[in-house]
């Protein structure tokens, strides 16, 4: 069959991104021809500012070199401006770089002509030395002027104008920024933040003239511009005038061809124009009344557009919430959403002029709708996420303005402001990645997302505690091109487009009983998934369909397959269970004997009140378990996304302060929950009095005994992010602790996303949601509790199962080594 012909007009970021997406899903469908007016292949336009500032070169910002076009069989006409589209004959005509006429037929046409700078309609706007700031040529001209002239005037104090002014100032020019409004960046910042930013930029040597109406650009003796004259009669010397007063979608070509335009080429949710064969993406397109001037939305458009060009016909672009970040070294400004303060909105403001910090959050109906941050933008990504997700913030309102790091993500204290960090500062403490390497990778590899940065640098890919910092570095490096993924709609992994929530729902509603069944039903893109999605699918099947779903050991991480914890040298650690932290001389003797018999190099007492035998050879595990089993000991599941321990204090059995029998309740809880798999590890604690010696405040469920009963706390975490558990309810008896606690656990097991600890689960769904299900509705509580007990019944110690091995030997064989 003849290949279809796709012609693309415009060779910029949005268009080429669409081609990249298209090559991924339908590489053979089209013969592709690209016309680009500039003489360069696709480059990263948002990094022109660092080029101007002398921090990067043109070569650094090329995204797709000529080889890429050749490798993908794309016919590329550079320096060729398309002059006409004939929609009847389905051809485009272009003037090539030598003046020759080039024409190309199309079956589908993609218009990605971007935007053009708005040139003020004033006398002198066409003089030499008057430029806009849009492409490589403008940048070159500015660099050249900076070397030869002294005075520069930038008209427009928006994002682009300020970045241009900053670059020119860094290149030694005397720069004045002229602006129509009362304060700078008035579309992104409110007055207070704008004034703070202005003061900071003035310290860097920039001058400002506000409320200024430019009347004329004055011609000098050489014929070049020499001054700017204002309506009030004042003049400013100017050897270079840079107009950064906004952009206009570039629609001339489309209009001429009779395609419906209205401040941009009007497109529907599939990025299709009124001519069904013609699509438009990027700054030239008007979607639901908005033409976006930032990069991030363009990438979302590219993905949807490619999907429709590939005739998959799924996916809708529904508009983007955008954020902006000024790329001026050493200055942190962030804004997102709507902060104009319309009816029914409320403001939360934190203003500390001494420290140079200003934060304004705009709320409406218990949701965050806008944010302006100056000086401290480390929580920008988090606010943006809350905003995009439309999350209810009622529960966290009192702490909202302090950000989500106020309780401390451990590991990088003292380095919270990305822009001020030196390149040598360590960002990711797990993988030893410093700021410089991250910035370098973002620039050189053309990275745009957190996932990309994780893949290329490993930063934030282990414990994730530096994620906020990495996002901040990403945002300050690429500015408005940064777009965090929706946390709720983010695909599970690269193997699928479905989110965790959608996958869970499908498994429950369609009774999918195995990993393979779920992958087939949900149209997984890879043959057997990957190390990220398989464990998640396996858990979702098992937790949705207990006793019916088929557990797949090969879809479990090695620790859950070997029922021990793998260590850095490939040896394992063995932790026998000690119910409620209690043990006996006989158990201790058995542990001591095993440690000697199998030459265990390290014996350690854990934080969960038991004993860890570290450095055991895998082939010794079954024999060691068999020895421990003789003393009545079973697996402690110290290795699993499962119940870990129930930590207890001594309680009223011995303690003179104790009010409740905490050890006894701890043992009851641990016996009830033995063998429970969960989205992530699960820890409990029971303290016998409010002195709380068992540290109930940092456990997934913490119980504190008081004279009249027990207080239950949920969602505590002592890990990466120290999170104090929230008060859940008060109950009178042991049985109620089991029922209320069990119901909470079951709700988390049914709704939690894989690898989501209870504190993150609660952050996502809100404590109110959980209270409603467990506390307010007795029927639902009992049903949840019963489902938990049903799922856990007849659970057998996995160590004993392997030692006995009823599977025909396959389980046990994984521990045997074949000698040749």
């Amino acid at each position, binding site marked *: 069959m003849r290949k279809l012909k796709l012609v693309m007009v415009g060779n910029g970021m949005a268009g080429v991104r669409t081609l990249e997406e298209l090559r991924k899903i339908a590489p053979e469908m089209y013969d592709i021809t690209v016309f680009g007016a500039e003489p360069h292949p696709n480059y990263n336009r948002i990094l022109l500012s660092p080029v101007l500032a002398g921090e990067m070169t043109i070569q650094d910002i090329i995204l797709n070199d000529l080889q890429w076009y050749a490798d993908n069989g794309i016919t590329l006409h550079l320096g060729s401006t398309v002059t006409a589209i004939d929609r009847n004959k389905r051809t485009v005509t272009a003037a090539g770089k030598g003046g020759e006429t080039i024409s190309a037929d199309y079956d589908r046409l993609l218009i990605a002509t971007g935007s053009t700078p708005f040139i003020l309609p004033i006398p002198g706007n066409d003089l030499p030395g008057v430029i806009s700031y849009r492409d490589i040529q403008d940048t070159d001209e500015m660099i050249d002027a900076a070397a030869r002239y002294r005075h520069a005037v930038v008209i427009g104090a928006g994002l682009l104008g300020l970045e241009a002014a900053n670059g020119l100032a860094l290149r030694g020019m005397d720069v004045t920024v002229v602006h129509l409004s009362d304060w700078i960046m008035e579309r992104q910042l409110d007055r207070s933040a704008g004034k703070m930013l202005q003061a900071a930029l003035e310290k860097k040597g920039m001058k400002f003239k506000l409320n200024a109406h430019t009347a004329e650009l004055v011609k000098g003796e050489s014929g070049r511009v020499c001054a700017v004259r204002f309506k009030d009669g004042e003049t400013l010397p100017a050897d270079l005038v840079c107009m950064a007063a906004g952009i206009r979608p570039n629609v001339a070509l489309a209009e001429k061809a009779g395609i419906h335009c209205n401040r941009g080429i009007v497109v529907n949710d599939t990025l299709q124009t009124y001519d069904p064969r013609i699509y438009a993406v990027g700054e030239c397109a008007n979607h639901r009344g908005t033409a976006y001037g930032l990069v991030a939305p363009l990438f979302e458009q590219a993905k949807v557009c490619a999907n429709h060009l590939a005739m998959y016909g799924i996916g809708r672009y529904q508009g983007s919430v955008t954020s902006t970040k000024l790329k001026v070294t050493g200055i942190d400004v962030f804004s997102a959403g709507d902060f104009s303060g319309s009816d029914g909105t409320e403001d939360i403001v934190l203003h500390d002029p001494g420290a140079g910090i200003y934060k304004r959050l705009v709320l409406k109906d218990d949701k965050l709708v806008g944010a302006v941050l100056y000086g401290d933008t480390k929580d920008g990504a988090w606010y943006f996420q809350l905003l995009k997700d439309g999350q209810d913030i009622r529960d966290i309102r009192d702490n909202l303005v302090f950000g989500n790091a106020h309780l401390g993500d451990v590991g990088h204290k003292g380095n919270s402001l990305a822009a001020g960090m030196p390149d040598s500062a360590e960002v990711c403490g797990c993988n030893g990645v410093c700021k410089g390497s991250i910035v370098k990778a973002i620039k050189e590899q053309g990275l745009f997302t957190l996932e990309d940065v994780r893949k290329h640098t*490993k930063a934030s890919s282990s414990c994730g505690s530096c994620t906020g910092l990495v996002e901040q570095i990403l945002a300050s490096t690429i500015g408005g091109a940064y777009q965090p993924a929706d946390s709720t709609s983010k695909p599970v992994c690269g193997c699928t487009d479905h989110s965790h929530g959608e996958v869970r729902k499908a498994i429950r509603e369609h009774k999918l009983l195995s990993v393979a069944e779920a992958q087939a039903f949900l149209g997984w893109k890879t043959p*057997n*998934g990957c190390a990220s999605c398989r464990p998640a699918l396996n858990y979702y099947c098992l937790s949705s369909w207990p006793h019916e779903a088929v557990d797949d050991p090969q879809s479990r991480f*090695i620790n859950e397959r070997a029922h021990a914890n*793998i260590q850095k040298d490939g040896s394992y650690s063995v932790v026998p269970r000690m119910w409620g932290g209690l043990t006996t001389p006989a158990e201790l003797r058995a542990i001591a004997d095993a440690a000697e018999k199998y030459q265990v190099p390290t014996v350690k007492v854990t934080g969960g009140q038991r004993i860890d035998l570290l450095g055991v050879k895998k082939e010794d595990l079954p024999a060691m378990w068999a020895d421990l089993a003789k003393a009545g000991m079973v697996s402690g599941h110290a290795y699993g996304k499962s119940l870990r321990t129930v930590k207890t204090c001594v309680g009223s059995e011995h303690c003179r302060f104790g009010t409740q029998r905490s050890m006894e309740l701890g043992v009851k809880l641990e016996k009830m929950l033995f063998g429970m798999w969960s989205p992530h590890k699960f820890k409990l604690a029971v303290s016998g009095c409010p002195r709380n010696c068992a540290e109930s405040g940092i456990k997934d469920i913490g119980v504190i005994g008081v004279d009249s009963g027990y207080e239950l706390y949920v969602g505590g975490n002592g890990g990466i992010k120290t999170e104090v558990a929230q008060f859940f309810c008060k109950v009178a008896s042991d049985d109620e602790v089991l029922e209320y606690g069990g119901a909470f656990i079951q709700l988390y097991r049914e709704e939690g996303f894989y690898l989501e600890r209870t504190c993150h689960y609660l952050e996502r769904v809100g404590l109110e949601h959980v209270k409603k299900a467990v506390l307010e509705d007795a029927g639902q509580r009992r049903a949840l509790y019963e489902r938990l007990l049903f799922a856990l019944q007849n659970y057998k110690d996995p160590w004993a199962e392997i030692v006995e091995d009823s599977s025909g030997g396959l389980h046990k064989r994984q521990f045997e080594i074949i000698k*040749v």
Partner: protein
Amino acid sequence: MSDWKKICALGDVPVLGARVVDSASHGRIAVFRSASDEVFAVLDKCPHKAGPLSQGIVHGNTVTCPLHSWKIQLEDGQVVPPDVGCVKHFATRVTNGEVFLAL
């Protein structure tokens, strides 16, 4: 000339799993079985930090190292980009349900 050694029955290697072979000549070798019953063998040592690849999760013809999630292609021992590196791989064949390894 490589020396073909009989390892075990194909059924002794779990599907999407591995067995560890201790060889006198090369030390530990991981022998993998894919979903379509193809068998691959690579040195049981991740080029990153020497993690035991045999213990990783197998997907397609790739294994993810259990220590730091590097991905290694089993046909040729090449590390999946953006990480860089390779691990020695060995020829295998399955004859009459028996797995053989070329050492």
